[in-house]
């Protein structure tokens, strides 16, 4: 029966490949419909069980981190291709199985979005859960953050062995009080807390320091071209240089380390795993185009956007592209752009007070270089910047044109940063692969 399910999934994958389509959803969907108990049976057979990673921001990178750490000891099955719905986990199982139906894995590490984490638990109760954060994101899908927190509470209640929680997120610590699973915390040192504001703190609330003990704690952080951090992992302290840029990834490293400790791994092994993690899709990846470095930063919500904007300080771009799409996966509602403050991050435009001449303005913002807005909502983004008095050089909805314009506007050896929403990021990858292939 499982053999049939795997064949069905694999044949769907082959068919998609023949059609030239990437797909993580469809094979899982097909198998789910025909063999609804396939996933639960397969996961029950894993010696080390299942890890679920969820929260608003950092799921994909943290999943990569946990997988890289565990891969030093175990055979890891993961949905690292970004399919964070239940069907994406089924596809991952199919991909990790051979045509004879054998699944070569000891442990599964799944990132799941909040709603699908609940659905997943109805199929299989995970042994371990990592809760990263609850921030405003895609409110057009979930309604509001308190509702999102309620979803995560359901997932925590279903987890059988270990729940690892961000001690610096009060919405999460509140739901971790009465669980049957053992609870551990990760966190950041008090002096670093300002880098990681909670939703309330972003809107003028005071920073509250958690008194909960963290099994893994981010002690120090230096942001430059690379992200250098000091991490306390259990009883040890490790210096780590991450390949994925940004403060948010340093926090993700603390989360991944805390989760890895529940497997009984030592600090040195955990640190080594973290050092080897490549940036995930659009999370600080960089491309080279005729000597110019193009760095991609995925932005999905206000908190993530604010975090990503900080990378401008280290990268010093000569041009910056902000690409905003509004497809379902991006979020249809544009109001989130107004929860991001751009003036201090990009550098306000000097000597151009007032609203006129904001397109093709002579003085680019101090830190961001020549500024281009793109994507279906290029004009919305430009209006947002207009009200922060930041000069936009070009409003170009076509991503391919926008990226070319920005790249060839700057000198070889210069850096271009592209901030992009999810669906625009897929398109950017195609565009950049085409340009770099020439």
């Amino acid at each position, binding site marked *: 029966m499982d053999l049939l399910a795997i064949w069905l999934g694999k044949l769907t994958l082959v068919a998609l490949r023949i059609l030239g389509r990437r797909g993580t959803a469809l094979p899982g969907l097909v198998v789910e419909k025909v063999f609804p108990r396939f996933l639960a049976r397969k996961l029950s057979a894993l010696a080390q069980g299942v890890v679920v990673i969820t929260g608003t921001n950092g799921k994909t990178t943290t999943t990569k981190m946990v997988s890289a750490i565990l891969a030093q000891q175990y055979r890891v099955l993961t949905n690292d291709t970004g399919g964070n719905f239940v069907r994406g986990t089924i596809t991952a199982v199919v991909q990790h199985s051979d045509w004879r139906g054998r699944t070569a894995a000891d442990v599964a590490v799944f990132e799941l979005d909040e709603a699908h984490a609940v659905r997943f638990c109805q199929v299989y109760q995970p042994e371990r859960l990592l809760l990263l954060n609850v921030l405003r994101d895609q409110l057009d899908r979930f*309604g509001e953050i308190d509702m999102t927190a309620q979803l995560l509470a359901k997932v925590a209640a279903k987890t059988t062995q270990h729940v690892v929680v961000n001690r610096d997120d009060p919405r999460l610590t509140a739901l971790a009080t009465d669980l049957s699973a053992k609870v551990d915390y990760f966190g950041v040192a008090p002096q670093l807390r300002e880098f990681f504001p909670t939703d309330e703190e972003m809107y003028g609330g005071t920073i509250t320091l958690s008194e909960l003990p963290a099994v893994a704690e981010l002690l120090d952080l230096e942001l430059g071209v690379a992200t250098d951090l000091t991490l306390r992992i259990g009883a040890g302290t490790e210096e780590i240089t991450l390949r994925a840029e940004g403060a948010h990834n340093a926090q993700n490293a603390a989360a991944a380390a805390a989760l890895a400790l529940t497997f009984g791994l030592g600090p040195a092994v955990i640190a080594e795993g973290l050092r080897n993690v490549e940036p995930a899709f659009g999370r600080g990846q960089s491309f080279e185009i005729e000597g110019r470095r193009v760095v991609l930063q995925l932005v999905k919500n206000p908190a993530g956007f604010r975090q990503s904007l900080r990378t401008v300080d280290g990268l010093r771009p000569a041009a910056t592209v902000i690409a905003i799409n509004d497809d379902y996966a991006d979020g*249809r509602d544009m109001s989130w752009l107004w929860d991001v403050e751009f003036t201090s991050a990009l550098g306000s435009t000097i000597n151009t*007070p007032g609203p006129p001449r*904001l397109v093709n303005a002579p003085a680019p913002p101090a830190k961001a270089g020549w500024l281009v807005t793109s994507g279906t909502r290029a004009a919305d983004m430009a209006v947002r910047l*207009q009200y922060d008095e930041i000069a936009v050089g070009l409003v170009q909805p076509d991503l391919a044109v926008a990226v070319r314009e920005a790249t060839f506007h700057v000198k070889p050896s210069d850096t271009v940063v592209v901030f992009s929403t999810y669906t625009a990021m897929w398109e950017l990858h195609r565009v950049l692969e085409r340009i770099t292939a020439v």
Partner: protein
Amino acid sequence: MTTLTLVHLYPREMNIYGDTGNVLVLRKRLQWRGIEAVVVPINVGDELPADVDIVLGGGGQDAAQGDIGADFVRRAGTLRAMADDGVVMLTICGTYQMLGHEFLTKDGHRIVGTGVLDLVTRGSDHRLIGNNHVDTEWGRMVGFENHSGLTELGTGVRPLGTAAAGRGNNGTDQTEGAVRDNVFGTYLHGPVLAKSPEFADELLRRALARRGMSGDLEPLDDRLAMAAAAVAVGRPR
């Protein structure tokens, strides 16, 4: 030179869908015309300034509405007097609901409002979510609605406009928002003023006129905002 006073109601609790942007839009549009403005945030327990020109309030978590409810109602008399006095108010979503007589929750609780606007809201199980544009006497307003409360207007207010694409106040009568004197309420997030510059200037003109100042505002280059509005109208719900 007169300075206009803008009050921002409960910025900590009522800020969830970018409505704080309305404060920025008005402040900048005044500043760009050389008119001074101060923004006074009013949180629970704070006293309102004596001479208010414009009051702005946004949407919040349903739970937050409970936190601020008592404080809001404490101000009911003051807010009604301000409305009678021609103070300009723009209230969105949760704050709009709180300007009404009451909110009847799904489980039958009655939350008393401030009675500034003649309307009542009842909770529902269904959320009205999506792009919306509304035809009003100040042109087409573009925004995004996201609410489960259903609002019925009384005879003391008229609708802000007709919901052309979305569900509006209650999903049945196609009305959107409410107007009485210089008090406006709407479910449009976006923030609504970002892509409705004509309406933003209408609010400013009314506030200036109330101070006996000329309502002639120097025109601004709003082509980007109009382009953004045109794109939004063409997008799926």
